[in-house]
């Protein structure tokens, strides 16, 4: 059994790619071995910025010999066929073997493929692995790059170590030849290192200041950072991503702590942490839970002076960045947020939806409405409107220009520094939330109003101008906006009809566009007219006529536009339903049940919709529910088969105005019963069978009960009213012939089934339910 070491050395591999590269190396190597018939355990893989390495243990010295059989013609086939087979195999007639195939003697060419030296297999596998390596981004280099066919690698490939039990596996890829020699740390070690094999690889590199195992470097950074923070009396702010990134940037990591001028702490801590992390890859520290004036950088060398110069250099870089941040912080606050907001007029939100300032106006109006209508309970309309007006103002500040990730957060700080109401500052800070699944959903009323208004406006706006997501394309993140809206509505149990909220944005956008369209047309015609002025036409008369005729066009356009707008609002509602289904699927809610409730067409209140869906799901899971669904489908099938278009549903519908709706009142029971009997005897020309009568009676009870319960939002009550139909409908199907010879009976019974169907559909559209 042999051990194999492979090292692919290159110029610095981006830290973010190393994990994927290790996995790819292991996978490609395993594939090569499997293809050669070599069974191997998972190889170990390592990476540093300058090398990818793999160790595979217990490889055989040779691959197994295999015999390959190739089937030829039948033994008694014509000579011609046999000769052809001989030609293609290169064998003579007496070298063929005869074997039995389903009773027919058949010729076979049997070739013994001898085992190969694993070293030979590896020598072919290495170039194949290198050529097939799926780097996220790769490049060409050097003289060979005169042709675009030259090798591509993440950065120039500079060396290959390939040793099988200490013997070099000879191979070559685009001028790079395998050997036993590698390099140590770029600065701590000079000259070649000759590796003996898999066993001394890590050790020899360690002696040359390279820790080849990334996991070991990560652990060192983690511990080192904790230690230097503790020595300074601080707590490290842990950051797993930074640990991995720094391990990918170093071969000999040394965490070092430095301090920055504490005056910089006047800058928001998010800014300091962000610039330290993303620009410099530094950890930050806390003292008593507050950001401290310290950073931890991870050097790749043991500095001659103990790292003093390194810390000092890094401190200066951070100071310059923080000085810039403080410059922005001070510059920005020379203006109020309201003054910054004026700049939003210069930023286009979307070509068809105007500027960000236009959007802000719409959002402010909508936020105010959400508060005034009590849709967001406890939200002060004035504060909601004010917060909405200022929420986007930080987009034009220097700070957000430099740190776009901090949009909202920065505005929140500026609002507080200006002395605005805390509720306003919080709303500005948090109005982008929630941005992801599982993220914190705002609950502060003013924030909720602004956040929801912002998202609903985006959705209604883009739908109004027909810019909706298609397939995988969702350039304006409308799916995200819908999902966030749903999260806000559900978490805060906001009760309202969605289309009402869409209407405001939708009509503003459409009317604005139409007015603009009419004005543009007018302007263009005016300029056209001016150019023909020379011809002596009376311009003013022409213009007056033009304006009047434009108005004639404009009014019908408004009508038509609103119709289109309304249609798009309903499209948007469907879009919401789809998002809701996706969101609820994860919570284990069946999408067909959501469909069933949505299909009623009158359900535009998401909170009510979901409680309805939940009640329905519980019901369908019960025995009564399952049986009722089966009966419903049976009834629906019969009605379909009989092509029943009769007076179906009439009874159910007139039931809406039926005074008998108060059937539950015990005082009225006698009266109600009498009326019912009268009604049925009036309607029927024959005596109903007992099962038929029973169904009618239960329907008389259940219909109004289900309706009343649904209206009172007691959906489980509505479901139990439906449940009462189960036994009678089952009995009806068992005992009553629907398709009776007597036309009158048939009509009445089909009507009864239609009435049953309608009663069930009034609670949810059962035809949408699967199963």
């Amino acid at each position, binding site marked *: 059994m042999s051990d194999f070491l492979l090292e692919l050395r290159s110029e*610095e591999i981006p830290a973010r790619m190393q994990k994927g590269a290790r996995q790819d190396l292991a996978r490609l190597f395993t594939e090569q071995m499997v293809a050669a018939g070599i069974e191997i355990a998972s190889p170990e893989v390592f990476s540093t910025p300058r090398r990818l390495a793999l160790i595979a243990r217990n490889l055989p010295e040779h691959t197994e010999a295999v015999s390959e059989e190739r089937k030829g013609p039948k033994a008694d086939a014509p000579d011609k066929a046999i000769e052809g087979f001989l030609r293609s195999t290169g064998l003579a007639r007496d070298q063929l073997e005869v074997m039995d195939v389903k009773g027919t003697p058949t010729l076979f060419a049997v070739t013994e493929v001898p085992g190969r030296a694993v070293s030979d297999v590896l020598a072919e596998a290495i170039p194949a692995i290198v050529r097939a390596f799926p780097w996220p981004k790769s490049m060409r280099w050097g003289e060979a*790059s*005169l042709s675009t066919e030259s090798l591509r690698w993440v950065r120039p490939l500079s060396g290959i170590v390939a040793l099988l039990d200490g013997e070099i596996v000879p191979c070559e890829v685009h001028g790079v030849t395998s050997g036993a020699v590698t390099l140590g740390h*770029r600065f701590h070690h000079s000259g070649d290192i000759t590796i003996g094999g898999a066993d001394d690889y890590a050790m020899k590199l360690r002696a040359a200041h390279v820790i080849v195992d990334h996991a070991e470097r990560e652990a060192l950074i983690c511990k080192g950072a904790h230690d230097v923070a503790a020595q300074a009396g601080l707590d490290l702010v842990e950051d797993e991503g930074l640990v991995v990134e720094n391990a990918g940037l170093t071969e000999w990591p040394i965490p070092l702590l430095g301090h920055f001028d504490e005056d910089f702490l006047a800058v928001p801590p998010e800014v300091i942490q962000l610039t330290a992390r993303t620009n410099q890859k530094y950890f930050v520290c806390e003292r008593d839970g507050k950001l401290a004036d310290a950073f931890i950088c991870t050097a790749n*060398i043991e*500095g*001659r002076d103990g790292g003093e110069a390194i810390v000092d250099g890094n401190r*200066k870089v951070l100071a*310059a960045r923080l000085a810039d941040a403080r410059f922005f912080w001070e510059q920005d606050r020379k203006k109020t947020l309201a003054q910054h907001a004026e700049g939003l007029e210069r930023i286009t939100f979307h*070509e068809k939806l105007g500027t960000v300032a236009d959007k802000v106006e719409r959002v402010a109006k909508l936020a105010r409405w959400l508060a005034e209508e009590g849709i967001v309970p406890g939200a002060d309309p004035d504060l909601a409107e004010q917060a909405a007006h200022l929420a986007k103002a930080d987009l034009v500040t220097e700070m957000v220009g430099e740190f776009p990730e901090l949009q909202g957060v920065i505005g929140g700080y500026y609002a507080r520094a200006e002395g605005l109401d805390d509720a306003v500052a919080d709303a500005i800070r948090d109005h982008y939330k929630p941005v992801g699944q599982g993220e914190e959903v705002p609950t502060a009323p003013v924030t909720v109003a602004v956040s929801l208004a912002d998202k609903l406006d985006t959705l209604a706006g883009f739908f109004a101008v027909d810019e909706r997501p298609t397939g995988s394309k969702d350039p304006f993140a409308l799916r995200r906006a819908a999902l966030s809206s749903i999260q806000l509505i559900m978490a805060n149990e906001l009760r309202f009809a969605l289309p009402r909220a869409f209407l405001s944005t939708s009509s503003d956008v459409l009317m604005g566009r139409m007015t603009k369209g009419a004005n543009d047309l007018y302007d263009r015609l005016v300029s056209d007219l001016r150019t023909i002025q020379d011809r002596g036409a009376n311009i003013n008369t022409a213009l007056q006529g033009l304006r009047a005729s434009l108005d004639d066009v404009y009014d019908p356009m408004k009508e038509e536009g609103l119709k289109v707008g309304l249609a798009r609002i309903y499209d948007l509602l469907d879009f919401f339903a789809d998002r809701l289904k996706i969101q609820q699927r994860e919570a284990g809610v069946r999408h067909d049940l959501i469909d069933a409730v949505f299909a009623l067409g009158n359900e535009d209140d998401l909170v009510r919709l979901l409680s309805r869906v939940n009640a329905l799901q519980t019901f369908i899971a019960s025995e009564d529910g399952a049986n009722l669904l089966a009966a419903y489908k049976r009834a629906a099938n019969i009605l379909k088969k009989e092509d029943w278009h009769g007076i179906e549903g009439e009874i159910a519908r007139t039931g809406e105005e039926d005074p008998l709706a108060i059937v539950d009142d015990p005082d009225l029971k006698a009266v109600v019963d009498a009326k019912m009997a009268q009604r049925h005897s009036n309607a029927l020309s024959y005596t109903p069978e007992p099962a038929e009568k029973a169904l009618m009676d239960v329907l008389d009870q259940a219909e109004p009960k289900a309706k009343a319960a649904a209206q009172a939002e007691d959906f489980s009550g509505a479901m139990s009213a439906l449940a009462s139909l189960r036994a009678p409908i089952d009995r009806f199907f068992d005992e009553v012939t629907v398709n009776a010879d007597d036309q009158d009976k048939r009509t009445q019974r089909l009507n009864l089934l239609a009435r049953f169907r309608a009663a069930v559909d009034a609670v949810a559209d059962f035809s949408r339910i699967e199963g």
Partner: protein
Amino acid sequence: MARDPANSFQDMILTLHDYWSAHGCLILQPYDMRMGAGTFHTATTLRALGPEPWNAAFVQPCRRPTDGRYGENPNRLQHYYQYQVILKPSPSNLQQLYLDSLSAIGIDPLKHDIRFVEDDWESPTLGAWGLGWEVWCDGMEVTQFTYFQQMGGYDCKPVAGELTYGLERLAMYIQGVDNVYDLAFSAPAAGRPGVSYGEVFLENEKQMSAWNFEIAETDALFDLFRKAAAECRNALEAKLPIPAYEQAIEASHIFNLLQARGVIGVQERASYMAQVRDLARGSCEAYMEREKERWASEYPEWSA
């Protein structure tokens, strides 16, 4: 007297000139136009095209109007110097050559932490991209190191290696000063006192920042932009890629000034950038057109 790069900014530049000259580079002078980066120099952009070997080094003054800080930031300037080296094809020891040049100007790699951190370079304006790193010295980006893969929309065959040193930042390290204006531009010599970077450029930064951000007449700038674009097209029609390219550089700088004046909206920005890109790409295309037959005849294995 032996040159000491730690003495002054100019000694450091002269040391780099000596170093790269000794490694077979042409030492060129700056391009005489306002530009945002040394990459715009024709010695980089146009010479990166085609199969001919090309090795050059030069200082290029760079203008980034939006980076102006009225002389108040210790290391942000709207006018600064880049040292640019271009080696085509990229030699296999390019990283080592670069590191040796740092040693030549006095950076001790066992005292200072030198790191190659992923930073792929892309200039949509030039239709160019490359892979490489920003080189960090104790966390400060001191050099952009790029293997050009495409220029003007054409594959680079062969690939050129480009090094862009931030001269002020390096000098601050070597001289151990925290503020760029405190750098010694020259050392005392021949009985004359040394001159600081601030004495040379502080007033310039103050005035230029004010002009870039507040004063420059925007209507005139818009007009200049249109004229440069038109002149570029005029030169392209006459199949003169180099003058066309100069006008593309001009348009690009005017655009940067308009940005600093804050008069270009987000939407417009994209359209201006697209215009500059078309001018620059058109110039590269015209350059290719003009040279490709000769190149193909001299380098049979090469093709456009």
